[in-house]
């Protein structure tokens, strides 16, 4: 796990997930996301899903739970470049619009204060 350096103005954290996000590891991912939100100074967590090859409704449920908890603390969970399959899963699960989605690096950099 890479060491984290939050930069001065940045209270945005980018976390990349690789592999799968399913029932098999949903609890593990949720714990990890809550740990990230618990970091001092973190306002937004950007979850990079670019390398997530498979996601099921249990995986999605974990993201919903983490996002709801973050919102209740005035923070945000954003999803970064989900694969077409992941987008499709979210659509069939009627979850489009629930998460802020960043499609590319431009969207990501737009989050930064000037």
């Amino acid at each position, binding site marked *: 796990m890479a060491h984290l350096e939050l930069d001065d103005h940045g209270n945005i954290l980018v976390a990349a997930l690789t592999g799968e996000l*399913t*029932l*098999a590891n949903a609890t593990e991912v949720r714990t990890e996301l809550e740990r990230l939100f618990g970091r001092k100074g973190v306002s937004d967590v950007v979850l990079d899903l670019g390398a997530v090859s498979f996601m*099921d*409704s*249990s995986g999605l*449920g*974990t993201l919903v739970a983490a996002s709801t908890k973050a919102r209740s603390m005035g923070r945000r969970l954003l999803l970064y470049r989900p694969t077409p399959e992941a987008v499709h899963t979210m659509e069939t*699960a009627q979850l489009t619009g*629930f998460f802020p989605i960043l499609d590319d690096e431009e969207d990501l950099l737009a989050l930064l204060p000037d």
Partner: protein
Amino acid sequence: MHSYEFTTTAQRETYRPFVRGVAATMAAYLASPTLVHPLELVTAEACANVVRHAYPEGQTGPLRVRLRVTPRVGVEISVTDWGRGCAACPLPPGGLAGPELPDVPEGATSGRGLRIIACLCDAVTGETGPDGNTLHLQLAIPEEQWRTSNLTITETSLSRR
């Protein structure tokens, strides 16, 4: 028709290797790997339900998938458990269809599995009895999406560039 049967013990640890096996058998029939995703997803959702809901907390039991492939037509995926039965989720008599399912509340952290299944399958029926509780998923697959042959010989003559 080609028939395959897969069984394991329903556990979080066996769920993904098991579903990947079923998906790979289906993938062997298809022209492109991208077509496999919806087939894998519906299988995964039905198997995840067995792992999470079929057997009493802390216990486990068998999970079986029967796969029937009718080349150039479609597949039927039947997922069976021998647990408490789907009394909690009786399927409508005519089977499961997307629009008949209640909407999932926005912030709900669960309850999307059957919706995904209903949305991606052409027909879903269920059955409960001494032979287990089975969800039958049927998916038609357009003819051009089947792998026609896993061999192509292309000939070229050899000459200096």
